[in-house]
């Protein structure tokens, strides 16, 4: 099978990841399209016999980072300022009902790690290679992403419980 064919076979997985990463379908498919175009143009940089999937996800990661950087310059600051990022929307934290919106509120770097581990089921080493960060960073981002997501998802029921306690 040629790289081109394997690339085509991986499109559904790129779409799944992109959908979770950016939320809406059209934007996600734009990201996949940019990724495929870039991968096609850069195919000479792909070393045959290495993991094409990891390579494609690396390309997608880079494309995504560049897009985010171009459109939302403040997004990159999120991880450095977690308190600020979290505190601002605290009022509507209780309103986050579905997973989609909770994921969207994770810092981009943490979201990427969580999704590659959970959806792509990449090993932590693969995630580190794909994103170009040390494995320790992968583990800490994974841990933080999960805890934030958990708290957001629990927010609703925790608030409900709290009300019950108060009423007693």
């Amino acid at each position, binding site marked *: 099978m*040629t790289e081109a064919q394997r690339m085509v076979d991986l499109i559904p997985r790129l779409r799944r990841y992109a959908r979770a990463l950016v939320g809406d379908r059209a934007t996600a*498919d734009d990201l996949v399209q940019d990724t495929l175009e870039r991968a096609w143009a850069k195919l000479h940089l792909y070393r045959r016999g290495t993991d094409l999937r990891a390579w494609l996800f690396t390309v997608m990661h880079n494309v995504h980072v560049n897009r985010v950087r171009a459109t939302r310059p403040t997004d990159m600051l999120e991880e450095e300022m977690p308190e600020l990022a979290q505190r601002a929307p605290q009022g509507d934290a209780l309103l986050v009902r579905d*997973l989609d919106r909770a994921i969207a509120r994770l810092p981009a770097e943490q979201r990427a790690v969580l999704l590659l581990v959970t959806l792509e089921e990449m090993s932590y080493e693969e995630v580190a290679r794909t994103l170009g960060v040390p494995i320790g960073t992968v583990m800490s981002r994974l841990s933080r992403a999960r805890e934030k997501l958990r708290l957001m998802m629990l927010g609703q029921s925790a608030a409900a419980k709290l009300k019950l306690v108060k009423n007693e």
Partner: protein
Amino acid sequence: MSEVPITESDLQAYADGRLSGERLVAVETWLASRPDETERIADYRRLSEELRAAYDPVLEEAVPERLAHVSGSRQRWKTAAAVAAGWIALGIAVGVVAGWQLHASRPVAPPLADVGAAMARRAALAHATYSPEVRHPVEVGADQEAHLVAWLSKRLGAPVRAPKLEDIGYNLVGGRLLPGDNGPVAHFMYERNQGTRVTLYVRTEATQNRETAFRYATEGNVRVFYWVDRKLGYALSSGDISRDDLFKVANAVYRQLNP
């Protein structure tokens, strides 16, 4: 019983079901006396399941046309040089014939020693011979497509198909039988409304089950994309359309033949 130190990374790996052996036992032992941590990890596992349940359905969706067609057809690198570089890159990345790699930077057809290039040359000659024909471009017309395909398949000794290219604006004119290096060759002709013609040359391969990437050659003013896919070798020729446009057609042909 003394406990092994458990790290947060261990817990994450446990949540992902990636621990085994001693480490797994150690984490389970550690969690046994910590209900809050046990609950936290159970929440992580539930979240993972919810994530997969939410997004796995995307895998089943039909891939939008605009994505399926990306490979080369929606290039944003517009200059001819960049396009050439992309193709050369593909040639290097996927190149099957070692010799080709040595000649990858040459924008002209590789030497005749390359059997694929010989096919491309024959295809180009057939294109140049038949595509200008007004009255007798083909032996059997598209109105008898089933007969045409059955006849050519029988003569080639392999199932041959005439790809449907209406979606990209090309209608089958018909086909003919040609002599070739490895025996009979099937030759299909397609036409766009304004009379632009492309021809698809299909021959059986002596070496079976070989696959190559698309390669490009020119012969006179005929452009050819050619490739081998298992039992059959293909060459798509045109004298009228650009390399980019011909590549789009080649992609469509490839997809039709490899659904």
